[in-house]
């Protein structure tokens, strides 16, 4: 338990992806089976305990210490699990510290009534870090900034194998993953991925470089289709198992029962998950209402019905199509979708074109309807096989040009790791007239990339030289009509938001240019942004 607790502790304060990978990989290398397997399961969200409900913890701690002292402690720390972990009185002569595997196996086997005594016994035996880890484990959701993809990448690094191979076997293996580690350490064969309904690692596109790529590419070699603004999914229905996966292999079936019900076929589709009403797609904002929910109710499904716009076929019946060229897969896909008895799955149509100029014109001026809210175009070589990862050449994405606004820097926050001494996260605002007719800045977004290291130094100096107030790691920067730093901000789309004071929220905002030359009063108005709403 101790090693796992230290891992969580460090991960929770580490921002850099590479540092997190190092921490996880070192842990997996230095920890024995089955503890490391259960730790991996915890990191990938594969553990849940019905017997352990955290509600009793507060009562248990108050039985051990003065309620007033506990209340002050909770007030100071702010987080219940952390407070309990810190204040739980040490019990001399308690049992030895449990291993992670003992905890997991005991919780799985126990009833709710017995779980309480077990957990209290463990809390007595563990130190503060161990108690914190135990409480995080019980309440589910470790929240240490590790995605399941990152944990799988650490496994891939451990074994020196491509992450696609881990993803491919992932849904066929179970915690504590003894067979996985045996393979990664070269002690046995790779576990068989042949579980029905498994995930197949996806093929991704490179962003096209207009200045370089087009002159080398022949229009006749490529198919073009719209790049839809939803999320990439893989819909699998195989020998009775139906699953919906994200492009990183996270199983989101439970969030989309309406889509799952429509998977009335034998095969695996690659496509875009979208909210669709009467065959027309809705904006990404509508889809967002459905994402990241553990459960979903009938009303939500009725208001935001989800469906799939299909663009590739990986498995047709029992036949694996991934080795066929795109042209053949596309013909099989068209026939496949045509046979489906549902309107929730439709086909992403191909766009015919003769020249790159002609295609550029289409991208710049898409027709009314669905294409008008597409993110841009996809180009796929007719002869491309379905190859996991992001190979250079066969597929390209050609996004629409971003929206641009000029906004004024309002707040800056210190970054992490290499950037920890730099003010590198910027909140910027645009002008809005208040009730009295005065022009005031209202924050509209936050960005922390898009500039070079040299530019970062200059902005950092500007922030330090023009600080008005400090709140912890955040500084507010002088920004008024007569003085301020203007950023040209690029973003992909804009939605209404009740969470932001300005009423709008940007997608993928980044700093496009720093306008040292532009007076703050000439930055954009909120009304300009409102006209860009999706």
């Amino acid at each position, binding site marked *: 338990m101790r090693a796992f607790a230290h891992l969580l502790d460090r991960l929770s304060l580490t921002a850099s992806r590479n540092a997190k990978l190092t921490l996880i990989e070192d842990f997996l290398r230095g920890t024995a089976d089955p503890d490391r397997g259960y730790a991996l399961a915890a990191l990938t969200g594969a553990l849940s305990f019905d017997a352990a409900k955290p509600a009793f913890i507060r009562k248990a701690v108050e039985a051990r210490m003065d309620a007033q002292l506990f209340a002050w402690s909770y007030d100071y720390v702010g987080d219940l699990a*952390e407070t309990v972990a810190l204040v739980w009185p040490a019990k001399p002569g308690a049992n030895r510290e449990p291993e992670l595997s003992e905890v997991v196996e005991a919780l799985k086997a126990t009833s709710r009534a017995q779980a309480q005594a077990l957990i209290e016994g463990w809390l007595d035996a563990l130190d503060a870090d161990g108690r914190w880890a135990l409480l995080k484990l019980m309440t589910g959701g470790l929240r240490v900034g590790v995605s399941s993809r990152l944990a799988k990448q650490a496994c891939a690094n451990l074994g020196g194998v491509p992450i696609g191979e881990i993803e491919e076997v992932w849904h066929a293996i179970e915690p504590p993953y003894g067979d996985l580690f045996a393979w990664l350490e070269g002690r046995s064969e790779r576990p068989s991925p042949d579980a029905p309904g498994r995930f197949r690692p996806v093929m991704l596109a490179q962003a096209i470089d207009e200045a370089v790529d087009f002159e080398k590419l022949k229009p006749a070699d490529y198919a073009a289709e719209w790049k839809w603004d939803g999320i990439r999914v893989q819909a699998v229905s195989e020998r009775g198992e139906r699953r919906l996966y994200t492009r990183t292999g996270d199983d989101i079936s439970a969030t989309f029962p309406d889509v799952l019900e429509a998977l009335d076929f034998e095969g695996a589709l690659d496509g875009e998950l979208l909210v669709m009403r009467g065959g027309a797609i809705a904006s990404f904002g509508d889809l967002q209402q459905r994402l990241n929910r553990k459960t979903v109710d009938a009303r939500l499904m009725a208001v935001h019905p989800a469906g799939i716009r299909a663009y590739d076929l990986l498995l047709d019946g029992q036949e694996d199509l991934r080795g066929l060229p795109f042209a053949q897969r596309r013909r099989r896909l068209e026939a496949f979708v045509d046979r489906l008895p549902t309107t929730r799955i439709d086909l992403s149509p191909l766009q015919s074109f003769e020249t790159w100029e002609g295609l550029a014109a289409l991208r710049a001026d898409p027709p009314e309807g669905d294409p008008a809210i597409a993110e841009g175009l996809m180009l796929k070589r007719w002869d491309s096989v379905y190859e996991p990862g992001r190979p250079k050449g066969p597929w390209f994405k050609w996004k629409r040009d971003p929206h641009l606004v000029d906004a004024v820097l309002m707040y800056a926050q210190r970054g992490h790791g290499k950037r920890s001494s730099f003010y590198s996260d910027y909140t910027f605002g645009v002008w809005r007239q208040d009730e009295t007719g005065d022009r005031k800045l209202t924050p509209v977004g936050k960005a922390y990339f898009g500039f070079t290291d040299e530019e970062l130094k200059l902005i950092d100096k500007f922030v330090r030289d023009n600080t008005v107030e400090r709140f912890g790691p955040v500084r507010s920067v002088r920004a008024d009509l007569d003085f301020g730093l203007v950023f040209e901000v690029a973003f992909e789309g804009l939605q209404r938001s009740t969470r932001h004071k300005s009423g709008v929220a940007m997608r993928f905002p980044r700093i496009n240019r720093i306008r040292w030359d532009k007076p703050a009063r000439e930055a954009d108005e909120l009304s300009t942004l409102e006209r860009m709403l999706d």
Partner: protein
Amino acid sequence: MSYPAVIKPQDLLCPKPGGLYCPPGDFYIDPVRPVDRAVITHGHSDHARAGHDTVLATPQTLAIMAERYGEDFARQRQAVAYGETVTHNGVEVSLVPAGHVLGSAQAVVRWKGLTIVVSGDYKRRRDPTCARFEPVPCDVFVTEATFGLPVFRHPDDKGEIAALLKSVEQFPERAHIVGAYALGKAQRVIALLREAGWDRTIHVHGAMERLNRLYEAHGVDLGPLAPATVERGKTGDFAGSIIVAPPSALADRWSRRFPDPVDCFASGWMRVRARARQRGVELPLIISDHADWDELTDTLSELRPGEVWITHGREEALERWCELEGIPARALRLVGYDEEDGE
């Protein structure tokens, strides 16, 4: 006809705006403004200020004050070694180790059979850079309460140093910068690293060099140290090294000379994750020169003084604990002592 006067503790020591004052002896303990006669418990700047006429302290504390404020920090110095007693206007004063930093002392004040111990800042656990706390039976124990909440339980410092050394091993391409208060904490961290077997050169921020030399002059061996300076435009030299700097330097442009630094902070505040997160600390090291909750309460249980006075920190929780234990306690609410973010 007269009754024998009953001496109340307030007759011997009482809080005044300038600090804790002794009327019969006419002196202050750790005054926050210039006074004629001051007894100083230890060298941290909120307890030891310049500008008093006469200062009574341990020789180490006097040396620290001279180093920080210059030789003219007071008109007259009176050095009192641990265990030595001086009498002033009939009031006996002796200094007993407090275990906080080099030279730190509890001021034991005796008058007409009444004993008050002003502990200053203190800790109970072992520290290779200073003498260990000695409990003195007393009628009134005056305690700090910097970490006076049950959430503050400092772990064994060996484990914290081990976590630092493990991180250095895991990230050999990065520099580890340990934020540590320049007086006491910095030298303790360095000494603990030496005890853990780290014998490589430790790089230190310029602001610490004089105090490091002072510690070494007082017999604390810090091993090979070097200034954390670089030639213009170079960074790579510090990969894999440990650098000790004042906490404020972590966020400062100063730290940019090091390759992808891991920010570490040696402080009792690091026990609470939100505090670490707030400061952007990647590796918190829970190493404190103040007593934690258990040390504070265990000390009171051990001494069982007739009364407890709490000078500064989180008084209400410690007061509550005393109430539950049936020990009369009151908060003095002295102002001018930092909660000291850097400790």
